[in-house]
């Protein structure tokens, strides 16, 4: 398959993020937000047809639903009931891989969805709350999508509130090993990273076209391990772009990264 000549950064991120789900086999792929959902959907349509998916409400689907309003005669390919209480049965059985977008990610891979600044009793900015992050992070693999890579998200020091566990020896529960924690890919508007560096340090996996390793480091509040060879993030193929277009007919992906830049910025 040859790379498409033109594609947006969001589409590049969707394709890069879909790799998270490629080798997972028969697990529930949960992508919260437009880019993660399209990434999981693309994987289900291409690299991992065994992936399971919900309609983001209460049904499991054998084919991902396109995002946004659908024709009146559209029939979802429902295969089972999957209400929220059953989601937890799935989470705790570990047959899931979720991709989410927290507000902060620290050097340990711990993330924050709850509150920023101030004190815990009186935070400066209250956000969502811990949501399902504590349970997700200790139960199954997780990946992150961050549309705006900067030092506020990838902050120096620990997260203001730790919603999900990471590779932090000081917080490691008794009887657990750091290898029990399974953070996979971190996809941003600049690059793809993982926590596969020395001692679970965050490391560069690939740079998006036109982005340098220095830029990534400047926008990350802690040291990023940079291997000797860092490949460029693979461009989408036309086939992948066609599938993405069919899954997102209203082009919601155009509104996920500031100014919807092209994928190749070199």
């Amino acid at each position: 398959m040859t790379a498409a000549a033109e594609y947006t950064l969001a589409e590049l991120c969707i394709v890069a993020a879909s790799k998270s789900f490629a080798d997972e086999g028969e697990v529930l792929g949960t992508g919260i937000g437009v880019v993660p959902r399209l990434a999981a959907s693309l994987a289900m349509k291409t690299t991992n047809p065994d992936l399971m998916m919900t309609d983001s409400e209460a049904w499991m689907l054998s084919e991902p639903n396109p995002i946004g309003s659908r024709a009146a005669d559209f029939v979802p390919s429902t295969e089972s009931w999957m209400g929220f209480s059953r989601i937890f049965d799935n989470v705790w059985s570990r047959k899931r891989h979720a991709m989410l977008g927290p507000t902060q990610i620290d050097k340990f891979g711990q993330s924050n969805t709850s509150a920023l600044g101030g004190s815990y009793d009186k935070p400066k900015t209250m956000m969502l709350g811990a949501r399902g992050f504590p349970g997700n992070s200790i139960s199954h693999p997780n990946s992150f999508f961050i549309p705006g890579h900067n030092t506020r998200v990838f902050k120096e020091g620990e997260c203001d509130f730790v919603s999900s566990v990471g590779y932090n020896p000081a917080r490691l529960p008794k009887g657990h090993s750091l290898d029990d924690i399974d953070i996979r890919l971190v996809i941003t508007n600049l690059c793809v990273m993982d926590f596969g560096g020395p001692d679970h340090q965050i490391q560069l996996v690939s740079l998006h076209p036109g982005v340098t390793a220095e830029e990534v480091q400047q926008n990350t509040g802690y040291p990023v391990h940079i291997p000797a060879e860092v490949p460029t993030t693979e461009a989408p193929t036309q086939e992948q772009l066609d599938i993405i277009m069919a899954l997102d007919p209203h082009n919601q992906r155009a509104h996920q990264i500031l100014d919807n830049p092209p994928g190749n910025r070199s």
Partner: protein
Amino acid sequence: MNKQMTASEVVAQLEDGMTVGIGGWGPRRKPMALVREILRSGLKDLTIVSYGGADVGMLCAAGKVKKVVFAFVSLDFIPLEPYFRQARQSGSIEVMEIDEGMMLLGLRAASWGIPFIPTEVGLGTDVITQNPDIKVIDSPYDDKEWVAMPALKLDASLIHADKADVRGVCQIAGPDHYMDDWFARAAAKTFVSCDELVESEYFHDPAQARMVHWERSMTTGVVPIAGGAHPTSCSPLYGFDVAHFKAYAASAKGEGGFNDYIQQYLGASEQEYQSNVGGLDAICAIELPTY
């Protein structure tokens, strides 16, 4: 046994300082007419346990809340609940912030009459460090430590269902009953508002009975209020009211804040409220959301 009652009779059974569970999820199928009746009452110092949305935000804004037990409070399409946010940022409420699944376990423990349920969920995170009341314990069977998620015992639960009979058989025909069955079981008293009161014969059809998620002994009172979930959704009957939620969120930025919202919409009764938001027909005409 006839359990039919009015919203004000429900509120008369609640007391200051009670722990009250509220069913639904975010902007979906919340017993909002019962919440509004609390707003009209003198109740205070409540501890609210909820997969929270505007139910939590409104009760906080009206000064009814001492403490919120939550995993999130969100209107979904407006991610941050404006009045919950104000309450947190002004430090005016106590909180017990836990994982969504921990809340489910806490409700189950309360339902089953056991003090806690062991789980891995929460280990290594600030839901443990910020909640000294949630203990981490050793296991008698392995060398690991486990979170002992305490029972979330509720004095009362408030739930909204599509249909119910006067004996307390409640049907949720929408695609998800969320954790409402556990809210019903975890509470000493469970009050259910419903869009439609039906005869018991309605449930003789097994396809209808299949959508009854707890037995009637768990239901204390049934309050027929068509449109009673507004502005939240009650699938398959009506969606959530996007325009109303936007006005609600905007009120939090205005000078008059929640008082303006109350003045404009709440009214002295549910009938007045519904006429202030365009009437029952308008509520029932709200399109279901697409996810």
